[in-house]
């Protein structure tokens, strides 16, 4: 290997080492949500697609142990009202640190929310703001609870 190639390899190693050694402040990522068109009548469904780093789990919305922090998605908007939030079916996972199997989400999953137009909604574009509270662990450690801010573009018809 000549000196240039060696330098590139060394730089790559350093960069990868820095990434591998870094803390994991956010193991859960949210895909950009699709724009919501709010009709005059009826309900609409919004989807939030999430991706969790391999090896980690987040507690489901209904954990089996009282001390665990559940996942919670809440919305705040003057244009729509939340009818219901539908979390995916949780996975039951055995853990070394819990007598009861854990109720968790892992990998890629989706949360659906049913909305209806708010009575005082003004027609036109806007944003729907959401907060996703979660707490992630792997089999050796847990990360502090986090709240992700979600912003969904919408158009009130």
């Amino acid at each position, binding site marked *: 290997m000549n000196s240039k*190639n060696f330098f590139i390899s060394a730089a790559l*190693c350093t960069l*990868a080492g820095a990434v*591998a050694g870094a803390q994991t402040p956010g193991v859960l990522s949210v895909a950009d949500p699709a724009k919501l068109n709010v009709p005059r009548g009826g309900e609409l469904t919004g989807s939030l697609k999430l991706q969790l780093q391999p090896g980690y789990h987040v507690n489901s919305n209904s954990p089996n142990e009282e*001390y*665990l*922090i559940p996942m919670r998605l809440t919305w705040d908007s003057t244009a729509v009202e939340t009818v219901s939030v539908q979390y995916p079916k949780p996975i039951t996972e055995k853990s070394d640190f819990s007598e009861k199997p854990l109720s968790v989400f892992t990998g890629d999953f989706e949360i659906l929310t049913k909305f209806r137009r708010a009575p005082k909604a003004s027609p036109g574009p806007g944003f729907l703001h959401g907060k996703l509270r979660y707490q992630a662990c792997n089999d050796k*450690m*847990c990360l*502090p609870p986090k709240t992700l801010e979600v912003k969904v573009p919408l158009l009130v018809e």
Partner: protein
Amino acid sequence: MRFRVMCALTAALLALSIGGCVSQNFRDEIQIEVKPASKRNPAPDFEVKDANGQAFHLADYKGKVVLLNFWATWCGPCKVEIPWFIEFEKNYKDRGFAVVGVSLDDDGWDAVKPYIESRKMNYRVALGSMQIERLYGGGEGIQSLPTSFVIDRDGKIADVHVGLISRNDYQNELEELLH
């Protein structure tokens, strides 16, 4: 030339990924040991109040071996360690040892006090703050729980454990420092 550079990059990435796997496996197998005394840094001092409202400094423990454990009631792996620490406190107290638990629960004593009582925790527990977290975890604070610092009699950090390790690993380190 470009082809050779690409080959070198590919080889470097491959070596890196294999190396990462090997070193991870190696880490799982190696015996955990305290740092040599000459390489230990001082444990930063802080003042906190315990569950009885009594203020204390970490520096008050100088002359003792201390296991400083950052934990939270919502942390499953932390729950595994607590019975070990209760036992260590009981067995090693007379040899100059103490466990100091620092809870990072957002709900404060409302969450922590009932937990202390239900688990019959016999060691001192305090509530953490961002200031203490930064002293021990840098700018972002403590990012993973449990995180434990094993502190020698001179108030220096002999080892740090991020995540759950075995009871025996803790015990071996404490025995070495208490010797």
